[in-house]
């Protein structure tokens, strides 16, 4: 019962990590995941202190208070710059 967490672009490079798996029973919201990731170490804490980061659940943009459940794919990334 896990949640797949993926990272993109500058965020992925800063973390030097593109994907991580976390236990679904330890988190209830996107904000919980962020907090959990920030507690890994000082570097991750610093990276996740960036208030501009965006998040998505199962390919839909969401805000931090959105709930997550097992088998969800949660993504974190910087503001988009396509086009």
């Amino acid at each position, binding site marked *: 019962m896990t949640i797949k967490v993926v990272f*993109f672009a*500058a965020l992925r490079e800063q973390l030097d990590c593109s994907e991580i798996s976390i236990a679904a029973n330890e988190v209830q919201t996107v904000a919980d995941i962020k907090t959990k990731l920030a507690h890994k170490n000082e570097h991750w804490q610093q990276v996740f202190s960036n208030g501009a980061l965006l998040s998505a659940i199962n*390919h839909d943009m969401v805000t931090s208070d959105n709930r997550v459940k097992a088998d969800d794919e949660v*993504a974190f*990334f910087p*503001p*988009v710059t*396509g*086009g």
Partner: protein
Amino acid sequence: MPLTHSTAVKISIQNQDFNLQDEVNLLEQDNAVDGAVVTFTGRVRNKNAGLTVSGLYLEHYAGMTEKSLEKIIIQAQKRWQIGRVAVIHRIGQLVIGEQIVFVGVTSMHRQDAFAAAEFIMDYLKVQAPFWKKELTEQGEKWLEAKQSDSKQAQQWDS
């Protein structure tokens, strides 16, 4: 692949270049009701924020990209009377002058085609998960999102 009325939307994320005339012909194939076609094409510029740029690297979030573009197009279809829509976005390595993005919209009324094409571009800029890394004289650098793009998208709400 010809577009039929049931598949009036084409979304393509691709490495390779596209040809405007081919895309417009596809939008107008077996579509003699829509006399107006508006297109937007974005190209790699040679300067950004004062730095000389030699090229771009484009990353995206496969799966979410397509879903977000579909949602944007559905919003445009609700707002305006439009026929077919094509959105092409290139990913990977691109050099100066290369085509990055294409939006094409057909309609019976040119006003609707203009508005919908601009709307789709404005929302693509702030909602579709693409990221550009610029290759400049000072090395690689991820582009910062522009506040002007957020404002531009918000304008459609007023």
